[in-house]
């Protein structure tokens, strides 16, 4: 179907079903129950799941396929956000021009940076991209203030022209009148599910992007990128110049990042320079590695995982812990809470760091490899031949 192999088609369909039913899947606990804080089915978080999914899918096209570790991808995200907000300011709140422009500008930006950075490889490439991203960050904060509004962040004001804005249209980001923030609440007994327009638009775009990524992975172009990762010297000896291919991969992944940035601004019409900081670039690297670099589904998993952690784990505080362990004797309860306390709430970064280290040390292939290993255990040695042939071979 759609020019995909059977296995890829089923993967795409699974992802499609999961994203479409996400409001149900992510809200498994009744609203009033003690477990309700594990629900992730509120619009804001779901939007972030898919937006960072797009970002990580794009990053994976560069890092997973070619092995070039960029530490400055957040710059494209930031550029995308800024251009989208500028479109809102100039043309009006329809998200379409904003998204289109964000993809284009980030593509041009990526072409420029990639052309220079890709002259070097390995750690030098990482440092070059990092330097460019930090430069953009510093400039966005200082000199480019007329364009970026500096520390305040770029936002839409009433005095902005908004040429295509009419009174009939909503005064928040919308797609031909459909507001991004409008949410349909479905109450089913004790459960309540949110269906948010913005989420579904992002999810549809993510599915298209996921499909594109599968096509890229399976294309001759994707094979060429894999060859660059495996052995660039040998590729040179066969008379091929790898640079145009890596540059193309870099630009594509930059455009994905720009798209993610544009969507982010569409959900919440604000763009700040901190989106470009190198910690933000580190985050997408974390997502990709955590999920499994070089695999199709890995980055999406990683993005969902980290964003879930960030939102849910950071909400757990001592009161919540006391509720959980209330059944234990007093001394035990306090002791457990003292131990767990540093890892949740404000300390969730600590858990993230530990988890990340554990993944890099024990599971370089990320969650996908972990899943495969477990699946292998269950199926026994018989299925070993099958698994080696699966499409989602982890990075070495």
């Amino acid at each position, binding site marked *: 179907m759609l020019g995909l192999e059977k296995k890829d088609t089923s993967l795409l369909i699974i992802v499609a079903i999961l994203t479409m039913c996400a409001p149900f899947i992510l809200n498994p606990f009744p609203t009033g129950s003690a477990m309700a804080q594990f629900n992730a089915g509120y619009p804001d978080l779901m939007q972030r799941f898919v937006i960072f999914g797009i970002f990580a899918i794009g990053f994976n096209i560069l890092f997973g396929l070619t*092995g070039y*570790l960029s530490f400055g991808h957040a710059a494209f995200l930031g550029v995308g956000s800024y251009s989208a907000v500028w479109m809102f300011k100039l043309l009006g709140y329809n998200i379409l021009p904003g998204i289109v422009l964000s993809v284009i500008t980030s593509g041009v930006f990526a072409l420029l940076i990639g052309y*220079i950075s890709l*002259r*070097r*490889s*390995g*750690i*030098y490439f*990482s*440092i*070059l991209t*990092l*330097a*460019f991203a*930090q*430069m953009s960050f*510093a*400039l966005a*904060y*200082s*000199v*480019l203030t007329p364009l970026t509004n500096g520390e305040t962040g770029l936002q839409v004001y009433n005095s902005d022209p908004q040429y295509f804005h009419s009174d009939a249209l909503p005064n928040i980001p919308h797609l031909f009148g459909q507001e991004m923030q409008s949410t349909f609440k479905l109450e089913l007994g004790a459960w309540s599910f949110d269906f948010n327009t913005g989420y579904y638009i992002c999810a549809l775009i993510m599915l298209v992007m996921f499909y594109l990524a599968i096509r890229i992975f399976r294309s001759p172009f994707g094979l060429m990128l894999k060859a660059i990762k495996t052995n*660039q010297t040998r590729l040179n000896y066969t008379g091929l110049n790898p640079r145009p291919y890596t540059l193309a991969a870099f630009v594509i992944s930059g455009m994905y990042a720009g798209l993610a940035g544009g969507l982010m601004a569409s959900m919440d019409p604000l763009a700040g320079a901190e989106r470009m900081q*190198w*910690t933000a670039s*580190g985050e997408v*690297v974390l997502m990709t*590695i955590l999920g499994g670099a070089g695999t199709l589904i890995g980055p999406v998993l990683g993005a969902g995982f980290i964003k879930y952690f960030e939102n849910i784990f950071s909400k757990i505080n001592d009161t919540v812990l006391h509720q959980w362990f209330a059944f234990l004797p007093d001394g035990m309860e306090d002791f457990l809470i003292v131990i767990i306390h*540093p890892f949740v709430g404000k*300390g969730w*970064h*600590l858990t*993230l*760091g*530990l988890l*990340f*280290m554990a993944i*890099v*040390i024990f599971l*370089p292939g990320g969650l996908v490899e972990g899943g495969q290993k477990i699946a292998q255990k269950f199926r026994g040695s018989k299925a070993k031949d099958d698994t080696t042939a699966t499409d989602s071979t982890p990075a070495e």
Partner: protein
Amino acid sequence: MDVIILQLLNGLDKGSAYALIALGLTLIFGTLGVVNFAHGALFMLGAFCAVTLQRILSLSFETIDPTKTDFLGNPAKVKTPYLESWFGPEMGSSIIDWSVPLAILFAIPIMIGVGYIMERGLIKHFYKRPHADQILVTFGLAIVIQEVIKQFYGANPIPTPAPDMFKGSFDFGVLLGFDPNAVIYPYWRLVYFSFAAVIIAAVFAFLQFTTFGMVVRAGMADRETVGLLGINIDKRFTIMFGIAAAVAGIAGVMYAPINSPNYHMGMDFLVLSFVVVVVGGMGSLPGAVLAGFLLGILESFSSMNQIKQILPGIDQIIIYLVAIIILLVRPRGLMGRKGVMED
């Protein structure tokens, strides 16, 4: 002229911090071939050694002084540091006053220990893995160290004053025949710069003039051959890792009075130090030092108002700009050896 000298001096102290961190990074990279993203965290740990020692030294007990009353009319409680009661008030308070320099002695064993544990426990398993993996795992470690420090010391910067003797500024201008107050330079920064110079000289002397250093240098050039000669080079490299950690740590200790330590100061310095290492040339110790001072001075010059008027924002990006130009024009860095990390 006086402005130029002032900027030169301002650049020196930032440059010394860059140079010290970059020196440690290069030591680790040159010996073990590991790209250590947690080096900034070691610098931060050093700064917090100073904070910790200051807190330990000022541990106090409370006594009730019947002669004074507080504003409610109760007998006032007076806090006396233990040190003052042991050594007498004068000696005790001067020990507390000197806690930052004393923290160097405190930090060296701690940092060597941390470095040793880090190398044996974690980095050792990453020699054969790709550089990307090394970057990632040490990046994770840096997050963990940072968060642990945040747990214990909170997120706010902790002021850690220098000894009273070094407070105030030194008027360089008078010395050179300018107007008074034209070139003013805080004493502590002067101390920092000289301290950095001493440490750098010590590291170089250690590598150049001791047998141990000779073996390490031989190992850097050809690890396998040294191993075949029956020398346990791994053990020495581990010690070098400890030394590199200690260099970063004491750089952090001495930096504490200049910038109040906070938990993310390491990350802030790390990115810049990496740029410094790359500009100096991966694996070249003199290159790291040279580039450190060079970039520090360039940075302070570009923050001069006259230059900012011509090129607005240049002070924010000058280091990265230089790095990009150097990497493209001279990929090996200023003093990089041939064949190091060239792929």
